[in-house]
Each structure stands twice: as C-alpha cells, then as structure tokens.
C-alpha cells in the first residue's frame, strides 16, 4: 500500500469504530518499524557494531575506523586491545608495528620518474605513532621502542628534534597511554624519561631498559643518576612491579627500591667478569628483603657470590643450563657451539 493511501485511511474516521482505527494505527506503526530494520551496517545499533569491532584484527579495525565519522566515534568509544606496539628507529629506516599492521619508513625513496629523494623517516614514523596513540581507548599490552645510536652528530640532532616534537604531542594528549609492559632499547635514558610520565600509572606493570651499544656510548654516571632521579619521582615508576635493567644502569640501584622484582640483564663488554661480579655483589647488598633479583649468571661467578654472601641471601630458584654460541667472533665459525654453563637464578636478600 502506498503511504499516501495509508494516510487517507488513517485520517478517514467515517463509519469506523475506534477499535478499527486503533488497528490502523498499529498497522502503520508496524510498517514504520519494518522500515527501520537495518539495510546497511551503520544502521545497526552501537553495541552490535562494537561486537563486529571485537572480531576484527587491529589493521582492519583501523581501516574500519577511517570509513566515516560515525564509525570512528563508535570505534573510539570501544577499547582497542593490542598485544604489541613496536617502534624500531635506525639510521636509514624505521619500522612501526601494531599487531598485524606493519609500516616501513625508508630514508630514501624512489620517485616514479626514477629519482631518488631523501625522506625524513623518523618524522614520518613518529607521525604515525602519534596517530595511533591518539586513539582514546587504545589498550597496549607490550610496547617496545628501539632507537639505534650512531656516531653521526646529525643523526643525534635529528633524533633530538623529533623527540622534542613528540614530547609536545604527549603533553597535548588528553589521556594517559594504557601500557602494561614498557620496553626501551636505547643507549641512554632519554626516551624513558620522555615517555614514562605519560603512561597510565596503575596500568604499567613492568619497565625494561636495555642499552643497545654500550661501547663508546651509554650514559655517564652523572647524567644517568640525574635522569634516574627524575624518573624515580614519577608515579608510574613507583607503581610498576617489575624492573628489568641492564648492567650499565644497574649501579643506580638506590633508585630501584620500589620494585618487587628486579631483573638484571647481562650485556656484552665493556663489563668484564670481575666488574660484573662486583656489581652483582653491590646490588645484592642494596636489595631490600622484599625484592627479588633475577639474573643469568655464569656458574663459577654464581658460586663465588654464593660462597661469600650465603649468610645474607636466599636462593629462590636456580636452574642450570648450557650456553651455546652461534657465531664465533674470533674464528668466524658459524654453527652452534657449547661455550659454558650458566644459572638462571632468583635470589632474595636475608637480613
């Protein structure tokens, strides 16, 4: 029936009982509701669209978000859970990965005419990272940021400019970033210092900081101490439960008192065996009784420590396993080679 006919019947009361008329009204309302059944996705109600969003992998979810403002609003009001966000910045390229979404940024690009042009890969990678971090309900489980160091001064300058711009962005962000495990791989504490205050404090469970190239780089004692002092004042630092640090920052143990678990990550030289043992001993003496120190250590070193400090330490776990090397730097031999035995040990200080 045409709507106009329907309307005529609806408003023609001659000879009609009220019951009949009410029947027409009901019929009309049914026809209205029938037409309100969805014909396209955006007609579905918000909770149903959110169910569809839950079934989408991250890459498709972001594409879906970019289709229209309405869907963007719905998507932004619903949590976007991501297992991993990885940003790897090198001298000539950058890689940004968010679960199944991977973006590569090269420092040089070929134009269609065969010309090679220089592109600012750091800036472009950080711009994409900013776009991701702007998503209000983004829930990140693991965040890894890796910045390679380089002797080139221009590169350091470029990185510093990019980080300053990133800092301004973080300051303007209306929400704190939801990160459960933060992992920074960088020669100094610059990025940790920059990022940590903008992470939701109660959400952050573990912090890891490792240097990439220690030789010729790394933080000098004064700089490191100053940065750690600043970082250790933050709520995020105090509320995280686990800290994983490499040896070259471990001398700053005085600032690690808030962590329940403290894991020492062994690095390559400049740390000699003697220095390493000395460092572990000093850390052990500074541990609070509620802290657990986790480390990988050679069997002989561990036994030496145990012998001397047995009176003040409790071994919680001690797993011995073989250490293999794939590449021999001296002979250039490739292949798995047994190089020694080590312990994966968990210890606690005893008063």
């Amino acid at each position, binding site marked *: 029936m045409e709507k106009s006919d329907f309307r005529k019947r609806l408003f023609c009361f001659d000879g009609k009982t009220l019951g009949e008329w009410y029947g027409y009204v009901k019929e009309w309302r049914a026809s209205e509701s029938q037409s309100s059944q969805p*014909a*396209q*996705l955006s007609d579905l109600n918000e909770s149903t669209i959110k169910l*569809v969003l839950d079934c*989408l992998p991250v890459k*498709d979810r972001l594409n*879906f978000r970019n289709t229209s403002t309405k869907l963007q609003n719905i998507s932004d009001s619903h949590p976007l859970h991501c297992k991993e966000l990885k940003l790897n910045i090198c001298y000539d390229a950058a890689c940004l990965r968010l679960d199944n979404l991977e973006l590569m940024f090269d420092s040089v690009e070929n134009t269609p005419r065969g010309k090679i042009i220089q592109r600012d890969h750091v800036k472009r990678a950080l711009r994409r990272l900013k776009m991701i971090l702007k998503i209000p309900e983004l829930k990140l489980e693991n965040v890894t940021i890796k910045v390679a160091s380089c002797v080139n001064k221009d590169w350091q300058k470029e990185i510093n400019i990019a980080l300053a711009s990133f800092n301004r962005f973080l300051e303007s962000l209306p929400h704190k970033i939801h990160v459960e495990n933060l992992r920074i791989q960088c020669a100094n504490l610059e990025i940790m210092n920059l990022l940590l205050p903008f992470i939701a404090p109660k959400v952050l469970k573990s912090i890891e900081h490792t240097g990439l190239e220690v030789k010729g780089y790394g933080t000098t004692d004064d700089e490191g101490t100053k940065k750690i002092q600043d970082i250790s004042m933050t709520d995020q630092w105090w509320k995280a439960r686990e800290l994983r640090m490499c040896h070259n920052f471990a001398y700053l143990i005085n600032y690690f008192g808030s962590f329940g678990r403290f894991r020492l990550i062994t690095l390559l030289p400049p740390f000699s065996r003697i220095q390493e043992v000395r460092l572990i001993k000093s850390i052990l003496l500074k541990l609070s009784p509620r802290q657990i120190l986790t480390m990988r250590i050679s069997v002989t070193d561990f036994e030496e420590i145990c012998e001397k400090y047995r009176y003040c330490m409790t071994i919680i776990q001690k797993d011995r396993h073989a250490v293999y090397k794939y590449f021999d730097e001296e002979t250039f031999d490739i292949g798995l080679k047994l190089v020694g035995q080590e312990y994966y040990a968990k210890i606690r200080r005893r008063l």
Partner: protein
Amino acid sequence: MSVENAPVVDVDEAAIPVEKKMYYRFESNDKKEFRVSELAIQQSETLNRLVEAMGYTSEDVENKPAIAIENIDGKTLKLVFQWCEHHKGEAIPVDDGSVPKIVEIPEFDAKLMDIDNGLLFKLIWAADYLNIVQLLNVSCKKVANMAQGKTPAQLRRVYLLPSDEEDEAAKRAAQEAQDPRAREVEEEFEERKRQGGNSFF
C-alpha cells in the same frame, strides 16, 4: 495466514523424543507464521522469557493467536528460527572478554548466512533484538570476515557505508520527512482517545 499454510522450519524427525513436543506459534510483521519447538526457543533469551511469562499450554498455542514479533519480517525470522532449530539444546556461550573474539562459523551457519548484505544485517539486528548470543556472535564474525584486508574505500562499498556528507543529508531528510507526520498522528490519536474514553481499550 492460517496455521496450516504457515512455513514450517526444518526439524530433524529422528531427534524428536518420545514425549509430545511443545511448539509455539510466532508471527512476523508481514503476517508469516512459524511453528518453533520449545527447545529451539531457549536459544533466544527474549522469546524464552516471553513464553515463560505467558505460560501457554499446548491447547493455548493452537487456540490463541500467534505471538506477534512486530519488528522482524518473515524472511529474517525464518532464518532465525532455522538457526535456532539447528542449534537447539546447545549451551549458550558466555562472554569471556577475550579480544579479538575467537568465533568459529560452523558449516551450517556459513550456508545459512550465505545471503545478501541487507538480509545479513537484518539477521544481526534480529539476533540482537531476540537476544540470541551465538547467532549474534557468528553473524558479527561473518561481517568482520568481510572486512579483512580491505581499504576504507573498499569497506565503504562492501558495507554500503554513507560518507559523512551523505549521513548528514540523510539525517536532515529523515527529520524533515518523519517528524511532522508522526506528530500529527500522535495528536489525532490523543484527540480520539479523549473523545472515545475507556471504550477504546
């Protein structure tokens, strides 16, 4: 439509237990009638509560008018009841909060949902309205599968998504077209109700 002519949803005869099965009659908004087993209805929380509240006996089902589902058309309702009959007796899944949701689409469901997008969205809407959790999950998964590997422009085409401008224009048109008429009918209705008094009800 009479009960005899009503489309009957496929039922596995071998699975019928010895005791007499209880059926309910439902009517879609385009007056199509369906007979659905009590066990199948349990998949829908809304319908299950409704029939429980009504407390119908077998005689009531035959003698009283079919239960009207005014918001869903016959074509969609047929799919819904086919799904319910096929999955009758199955446990209703509980949301464990895992994201992305791991949902597998069984072969029967995949065939059932091999339909055009318009009908698929109606099916999702009906599953949500009737609170059929598993049907809602598999149909949403089907829609999500359609999105995989597509760019925003392709997604707009697949899902017939209006652009922001189209959305605004449609909203304005709907407001202009619907509001005066709806207001007029409501006013007339109230007027007649006042004149007719209680006899109307």
